[in-house]
């Protein structure tokens, strides 16, 4: 414990570098993941897309069960064969996007489907088009649950992000794996604690953001 403390005091820049790398990868992944997941989530709630929805959600669930290490490995091979860089930032971000999809998709899908049918009928009965129903009724009412999914995905991404270090993308996985190889408990502690702290911090910030964008009438 003391060792870890001394290391941080002596090499603050090193730690800062890992944190920044980690955050970068995670943020890029969550932003792209949100756009993808929410769009797809909205799409599969559409009329007559029940079967597509089942397939998509099933697929997202399967992706979650693939061990993260294996996914990173598979992506390296796949990207390499397509002529992209097989190590570093790109495969790491792609893998994290994939992992974030399930909570985002599932929450978006359920949230929109759970909107009270009476509300939808009221909107439709007053002459709203499907698009207006989505933008004025469904999305605002689904927002809190969608946000919960995003927070879930973010915590997941920050956690799994440690493995990105193994394919050369940097981040807080670096001290952890270095510690494991060299029997340096202090490095393991620094990496582990930082990842947890980062996840908690980002989750807290997102909770704040959630409060900000939740329609006033829906706040507790």
């Amino acid at each position, binding site marked *: 414990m003391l060792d870890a403390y001394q290391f941080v005091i002596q090499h603050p820049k090193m730690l800062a570098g890992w944190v920044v790398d980690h955050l970068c990868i995670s943020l890029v992944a969550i932003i792209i993941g949100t756009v993808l997941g929410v769009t797809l989530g909205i799409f599969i709630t559409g009329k007559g897309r029940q079967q597509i929805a089942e397939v998509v959600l099933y697929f997202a669930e399967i992706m979650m069960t693939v061990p993260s290490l294996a996914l990173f490995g598979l992506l390296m091979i796949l990207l390499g064969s397509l002529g992209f860089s097989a190590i570093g930032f790109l495969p790491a971000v792609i893998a994290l996007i994939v992992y974030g999809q399930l909570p985002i998709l599932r929450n978006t899908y359920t949230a929109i489907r759970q909107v*009270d049918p*009476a*509300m939808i*009928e*009221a*909107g*439709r*009965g*007053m*002459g*709203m*088009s499907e698009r*207006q129903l989505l933008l*004025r*009724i469904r999305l*605002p*009412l689904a927002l809190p649950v969608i946000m919960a999914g995003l927070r879930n995905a973010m915590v997941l991404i920050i956690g799994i992000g440690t493995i990105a270090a193994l394919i050369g993308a940097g981040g807080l996985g670096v001290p952890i794996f270095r510690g494991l190889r060299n029997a340096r408990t202090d490095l393991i502690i620094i990496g582990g604690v930082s990842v947890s702290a980062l996840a908690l911090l980002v989750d807290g910030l997102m909770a704040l953001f959630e409060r900000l964008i939740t*329609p*006033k*009438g*829906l706040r507790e």
Partner: protein
Amino acid sequence: MIRLEKVTKIYPDGTEAVGGVSFEVQKGELCVLLGPSGCGKTTTMKMINRLISATSGKIYIDGTDNTSIDENELRRNIGYAIQDIGLFPHMTVAENIGTVPALKGWSKVKRRKRAKELLELLRMHPDVFIDKYPRELSGGQRQRVGVARALGGDPPIMLMDEPFGAIDPITRVELQNEFLKIQQEIRKTIIFVTHDIYEAIKMGHRIALMKEGHLVQYAPPADLLYRPKDEFVADFAGADRGLKGLQLIRTEDVMWKSPPAAKPDEDVKAARKRMEQEGIDWLVVIDDEGRFAGWAVSSDLEGGRKVKEIMNTSALTAPSANATLSEALSVMLTSGLNVLAIVDQDNRLEGVLTFQAIQDALRETAQEASVRMRRITPLREESP
């Protein structure tokens, strides 16, 4: 204004929800669709704004086939009010009321102005309520906003699906009375769905009584009560349908608007003389501002010299001349007198209702219904 011609709805699984329903609603009339649950009344209503598509038959709105109008355009011109659950919780009162105006592209300023107008119409203080969210309102207030929202785009036609369904009986009666008053001003053509026969009798110019998807009788409420077409209608109207007739009559139509009155400072002898002249055993006592003060009853006249010494001040009063006779009678029975003072919000006397007047009004209504029915459909000749 609204005409249904043999409208039928058959669901894909073969269930016939509505079968060959035809009726016509005149401009400015309130037509109640009444019947037990599952009788097809809501389905019928929803076919008018095409929330449900008719399997066959035609619905004309102002002579135009409603399937020839773009469905969103059609719905924006037909007000739609449902139970309070339909208010959008993420929108303020102003935004809720402004829903249709927003869809019609009105400016924000104009929408807010409209919301204010409508809140005033429904007797809700705009400054207090306009920026509140539905969860900050009571059930009755929500229902008022629901009605205001249906009126938002000033549509000529309104569909109301049990709009006063989810509130306590007292607030419901209040809202019904107010809505009737408002309707006298705005004169919308209204289709009103309810399963409550009391509400139907009270609100409707005409009632369409439905059973298992079919229209059983389409008639003014008095005819439904006093000239039921068949067993089903009579049963639905109930054994107490004579009493239900009280719902048909407004207190103000029956009350004595300038009843014999006395002042508190008046001499008892003068009061007795007036009673004898009028042939009654009571005088209503009103103060100088016209407020109801109490009753001077002939049997108490010996008790003092001035009217104020002998008057009965504990009698109940009934607010709102707009209430039905049924509501007024119930107060009269509780108060134990056979006269009832009708007062406004400031306790100013609007009139006096006597038990005799109630009886007369009830008998007349029943007779009128019979006479009118005979005029419209000649009675079948009885077989010898």
